[in-house]
């Protein structure tokens, strides 16, 4: 095992700086972790296993993006032509705006809703188990099945949801013809599908708050809202960082579910970036433009995630 080397030295390394932590503890800003480059051996398996699937495909996509590829032996170098084409394509820009809008709506709905669900979730007894299992169910359904479920459920003729809107609410609803209906169907589907993730993470975070905090708040006569705002919410920062980042990444790259339900239509009402991208990559097999497209896409997601990550992890220090 590669770990062996660290193992031999590390305990002594960890024991040596024993006195400083007590001193450093006064100043919370100083990172108490000892410096030890041998820790790289512990990380190596992760780097190797991820790099195998991440780096080589990424390099290949970069190579695609500057060429017109017909086959490995027949290809033409085109420089940055595909990037120019993609960056100026009105269809790509439209899809970009649409995807951004979708992600914003998803975050604005799912994060507060998920936290609310977590706060309302039972904390004691058998109902905890039942609640956890039921809430988690939508997360465990393969994504194309989620699409299938909603494709049926939202249909006006054979689906309960679509039927209820048409016949009980009396509103004409047809997601295959009306763009707004299609958008709403995809949005509601995503909220249905992913709010449970936020709820589970927030619930776990809430459970980690020690009881004395609440007792203190109760003695002070704090209102439920004040307790939530000043005791619960700050302690949720960590889990909400995970939730916001995961939800942003996944909603910005949403593909399977809307593809099954609407196929990007009607027109291009629900044609998100990933759907357009697959149309170019898989449908037309234009590897060059698709490569350039996904690199620009990747760049944007990476920037936003870096900003989120930096803001959320540094604000608490």
């Amino acid at each position, binding site marked *: 095992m590669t770990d062996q080397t660290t193992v031999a030295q590390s305990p002594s390394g960890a024991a040596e700086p024993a006195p400083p932590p007590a001193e450093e503890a006064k100043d919370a800003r100083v990172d108490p972790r000892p410096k030890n480059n041998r820790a790289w051996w512990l990380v190596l398996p992760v780097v190797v296993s991820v790099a195998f699937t991440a780096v080589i495909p990424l390099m290949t996509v970069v190579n695609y993006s500057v*060429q017109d590829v017909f086959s490995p032996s027949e290809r033409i170098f085109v420089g940055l032509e595909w*990037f120019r084409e993609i960056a100026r394509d009105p269809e790509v820009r439209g899809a970009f705006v649409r995807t951004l809008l979708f992600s914003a709506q998803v975050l604005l709905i799912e994060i507060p809703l998920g936290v609310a669900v977590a706060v309302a979730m039972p904390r004691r007894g058998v109902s905890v188990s039942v609640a956890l299992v039921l809430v988690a169910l939508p997360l465990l359904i393969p994504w194309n099945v989620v699409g299938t479920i909603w494709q049926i459920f939202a249909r006006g003729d054979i689906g309960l949801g679509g039927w209820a809107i048409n016949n009980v609410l009396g509103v004409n609803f047809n997601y295959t013809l009306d763009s707004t209906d299609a958008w709403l169907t995809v949005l509601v589907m995503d909220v249905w599908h992913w709010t449970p993730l936020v709820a589970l993470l927030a619930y776990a975070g809430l459970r980690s708050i020690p009881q004395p905090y609440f007792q203190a708040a109760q003695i002070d006569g704090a209102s439920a809202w004040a307790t939530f705002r000043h005791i619960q919410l700050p302690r949720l920062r960590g889990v909400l960082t995970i939730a916001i980042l995961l939800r942003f990444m996944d909603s910005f790259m949403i593909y399977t579910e809307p593809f099954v339900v609407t196929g990007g239509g009607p027109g291009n009402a629900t044609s998100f970036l990933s759907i357009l991208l697959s149309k170019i990559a898989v449908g037309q097999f234009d590897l060059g433009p698709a490569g350039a497209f996904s690199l620009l896409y990747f*760049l944007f997601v990476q920037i936003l995630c870096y900003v989120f990550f930096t803001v959320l992890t540094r604000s608490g220090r």
Partner: protein
Amino acid sequence: MLDWMVWTVPTALVFAGLAVLLIAMTVWGRISPPVARRGFLRIETDRGDRLYIGLISAAVVLAGWIAITDLSMWLALGCALLVAVAIGIWG
């Protein structure tokens, strides 16, 4: 076996450059460990953070340039490098 990776000279040079940069940063880190400080970016960064931010910003400059103007990309590359260097030094 790896011909499906469709390598070209320019992309190979870019990746080689990145690899060299990473190695250089590691060696530099060994010689004088990085110090975190605050620059015009207003957040605490060490030189590795600034390298990452600089490279990403350079990519943004290139992408923005190609989306907007038909001017030479060499000019864009110059601007991108300037931005990256500026972030590296004062960021």
